[in-house]
C-alpha cells in the first residue's frame, strides 16, 4: 500500500471516489491511531485556551479534544457554507515577529504539506532603503473581495459566510486561473502526484482540511476551519512562540494568540495603527498587520537572508 507503484497510483487516480467511500467505512481505526500519534507530542496533558464553536473562550485539557479529531469531516455543503455566526479575522503583530518560522513548521505539520509549500510564509521585507527591514509572515488573506474566487470557472474555490476562502480539490479542474489572479502568490499547485502515506490517503476528504491532496489541483492556507470548528486556534497561531499571530471572530470583537492573551480586536487595531497589505488593490483582506515598531529582537539582515535563501535552495534540491 505504501509503495506507490504506477499501477497502484493509476487505480487511485481513476477510482479516487471509490477509495474515499471505502475509507469512510473501513478506515476509521487507522485514522484514530494516525491522528493521535501526530498530536501526542504537542498538546497532551496541557491546559489550553480555545475558542468554542459558540464563541466562548474556555480552558480545557487538550487530551479531551482528541476525540473531536475523529469526528467525520463536515459535508461538502456545510464546508461551503462555513461556521454559522462567525467572521474570522487574523491579526499579525510584526513588532513581535522575529522570523523564526515556527508558524510555517506548525502549519506544514498540521496539513502534511511537502517542505516546498509554505501556506504561511515568512518574508523578509524592506519598504525602502531608509526604513528597517522586518519579517512579514503571510498566510492567505481570505479577502472579502477575493480575486481568486471570482475567476474560478467551476466554483471550486469559494468564499464562505464566516469569511474563509476554501478550495474543493474534488472539483478543481487545475486551470490555475486563481493562482495567477491572486496578487499575494498564496496558492500552490500539486504539480506531481502527492507523496502521501496510506494512512493520510485514508482520511475522508473535506475542503475544510485540504487533504488528502490530489494531483493537478490547487491548495492554500485554509485558516484551519477543521480545528476552529472544535474551538481550537489554527496551527500557525498556536505554533508562534512570540504570540505574534492573533486569531478570532470579528463579530465577537476578540482575538487570541498562542500565549493565551485575548484582546479586543477593535482596540488592538486602533491602538497599533493596523493596516492591511496592499489595501489599494481593494481585495479587503481579513488579515491585519500591526506595524513593526519598537521591536524587541534584532532586525533581519537582508544580506544574511540571501545566504539563507541559498541554503534553502540546497535544502530543497536535496529533498527532491
Amino acid at each position, binding site marked *: 500500500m505504501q509503495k506507490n507503484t504506477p499501477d497502484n497510483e493509476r487505480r487511485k487516480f481513476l477510482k479516487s471516489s471509490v477509495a474515499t467511500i471505502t475509507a469512510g467505512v473501513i478506515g476509521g481505526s487507522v485514522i484514530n491511531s494516525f491522528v493521535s500519534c501526530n498530536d501526542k507530542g504537542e498538546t497532551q496533558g496541557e491546559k489550553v485556551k480555545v475558542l468554542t464553536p459558540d464563541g466562548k473562550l474556555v480552558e480545557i485539557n487538550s487530551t479531551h479534544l482528541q476525540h473531536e479529531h475523529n469526528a467525520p469531516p463536515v459535508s461538502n455543503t456545510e464546508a461551503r457554507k462555513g461556521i454559522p455566526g462567525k467572521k474570522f479575522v487574523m491579526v499579525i503583530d510584526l513588532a513581535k515577529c522575529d522570523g523564526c518560522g515556527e508558524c510555517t513548521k506548525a502549519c506544514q505539520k498540521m496539513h502534511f504539506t511537502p517542505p516546498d509549500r509554505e501556506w504561511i510564509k515568512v518574508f523578509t521585507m524592506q519598504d525602502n532603503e531608509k526604513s528597517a527591514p522586518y519579517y512579514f509572515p503571510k498566510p492567505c488573506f481570505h479577502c472579502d473581495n477575493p480575486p481568486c474566487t471570482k475567476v474560478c*470557472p467551476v466554483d471550486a474555490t469559494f468564499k464562505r459566510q464566516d469569511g474563509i476562502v476554501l478550495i474543493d480539490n474534488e472539483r478543481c*479542474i487545475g486551470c490555475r486561473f486563481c493562482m495567477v489572479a491572486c496578487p499575494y502568490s498564496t496558492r500552490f499547485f500539486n504539480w*506531481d502526484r502527492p507523496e502521501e502515506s496510506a494512512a493520510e490517503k485514508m482520511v475522508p476528504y473535506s475542503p475544510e482540511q485540504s487533504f488528502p491532496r490530489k494531483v*493537478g489541483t490547487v491548495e492554500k492556507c485554509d485558516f484551519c476551519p477543521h480545528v476552529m470548528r472544535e474551538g481550537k486556534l489554527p496551527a500557525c497561531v498556536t505554533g508562534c512562540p512570540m504570540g505574534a499571530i492573533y486569531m478570532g471572530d470579528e463579530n465577537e470583537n476578540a482575538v487570541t494568540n498562542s500565549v493565551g492573551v485575548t484582546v479586543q480586536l477593535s482596540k488592538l487595531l486602533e491602538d497599533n495603527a493596523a493596516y492591511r497589505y496592499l489595501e489599494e488593490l481593494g481585495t479587503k483582506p481579513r488579515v491585519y498587520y500591526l506595524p513593526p515598531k519598537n521591536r524587541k529582537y534584532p532586525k533581519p539582515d537582508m544580506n544574511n537572508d540571501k545566504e539563507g535563501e541559498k541554503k534553502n535552495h540546497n535544502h530543497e534540491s536535496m529533498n527532491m
Partner: protein
Amino acid sequence: MEKKNEHTTVTNNNNVESIENDFLKPIGKYSPLNRFWIGFLLIIVVWGAAIYIRQIYFGLGTTAMRNYVSWGLYISTFVFFIGISHSGTLVSAILRITNKEWRRPITRSAELLTWVSLLFGGIMPIIDMGRPDRIPNLVIFGRLQSPLLWDIICIGTYFVGSSLFLYLPMIPDIALCRDRLSGNATRLRKWIYRKLSLGWQDTPGNWKRLEKGMHVMTIIIIPIAVSVHTVVGYIFAMTLRPGWNSTVFGPYFVAGALYSGSAAVVLIMAAFRRMYHLEKYITKKQFNYMGQIVLALTLIYAYFNLNEYAVPAYKMASSEGFLLHDLFSGSYSSVFWILQLGTVLVPAIILAFPKGRTPVMASIVCIIIVIGAWVKRYIIVIPTLLHPYLPIQKVPIEWSQYFPNWVEWSITFGALAGIFLVITLFAKIFPIVSIWEVKEGREIEEKYEQVDNAIKNEKENVQVATS
C-alpha cells in the same frame, strides 16, 4: 455580333475547364515529397500526443512550470493560435463585404487557417489543465463570472461559426469533386463528397440559399471574431497583476491577433502558390494588397504597444516599474527590443515599399511577424508572473525562473505539426481554392472585358462614321 458572342462562350468554357482542372489536379495525389511531409508531421504529432499522455499520467510537474510561473508555453501558444485564427475572418469576411475581387483565390485557405488554428488553439488550455478528466465540471458547475467561461463561450461560438463559414462556400466545390473525381477517388473520399455536398445540384434555388447563408455568416462572424480575442485578453486583464492590469488589453489583443493572423494568411498563400503551382491565380497582386493590409495592421499594433508600454513607463508606479525595468533593460530586454524593433518596426518599413511586397519579400517579412507574435505572447505571459507583488524568496531556484522544457516543446510542436497536418490533408481532399468563386470572378472579368470591348467598338464605329 452573334458570332463573336459564341466565340467568347467557347473560350469561357475552356477557361472554366482549365480552372477546374488546375484546382482538382492535386487532390488525392500524393507525391513522394507529400508522403514524406505527411509522415514527418505524423511523427511529431504522435510524439506530442505520447508526451501528453505521459504528462497526464505523471502530472504537470513534468513541465518546467512551477508555482510562480504557473502559466507558461501552453497558455502563450493558446493566445498565439487564437490570434492566428483571426486571419480567416479578416480576409474572407471583410473582403467579401467590401466585394474585393482579388480575394477570390485566397478566401478558402484563409478560412481553413482560421478553423484549424482555432481547433488547436482550443486544445491548448486543455493540455494546460491539471485535471482534464474534470472537463465536465465546466458544464456542471460552470460560472459565468469567470473569464474562462467567456472564453469557452466565445471560442466555441467562433468555432461553430468559422466551421460554417468554411463549409458553406465549399458545398458547390464538394459537389464538383463528387461529380468530377468519382472515377479514381477512394471509397472513403467518395463517401465524404457524397455526404458533405448535401445533394447540391447547381439549381438556382441552391445558389439562392447558399448566398443567403453566406451573407448572414459573413456579417455575424466579424463581431464574434472581435469578441474572441477581446475575452482572451480579458483572461489577463481581469487580474490585478502588474503588466496585465490594463484597460487596453482587449483591443490590444485584437490588434495583435489581426497583425499575426494577416501575416499568416500571406504565408499560407505563398505555401500553396508554390506547392500547388497556383502562380496563375495567386499573383503579385494578392501579395501586394495583403502586404498593404499587414502593413496597416502592424502600424495599429505598434500604436497599441505604445499605449501598453509607454503610458505606464511614464509614471513608473512601483509594482509596474519592476516589470518594465526588467523588460526595457533587464533580463528580458534583448527579447523585448528585438520584438519591438525587429518584428514590428522593421517589417513596417519593408512593407511600406512596393519592393517589400513582392511574393518573396512579403513571405519573409510575414514569417518574421508570425514568429515575433508568438514570442510576444510569451513575453506578455511570463515576465508578469515572475514579478509578483511580494518578492520571490526562499524558494527552490527553479521556481524563480522559467524556460519551457522538452515536455512543453514536444507537446506544443505536436500541436503546431497538427495544424500543418490538417491543412495538408485538407488540401488533398478538398480544393484549397474556392473553384466556383474563382470561376465567378473570371466571368465577371470577362463581362467587364466584353463591356470594354463593346464600348471600344462603339467608339471606333462612331469615329469611322464621323470620319
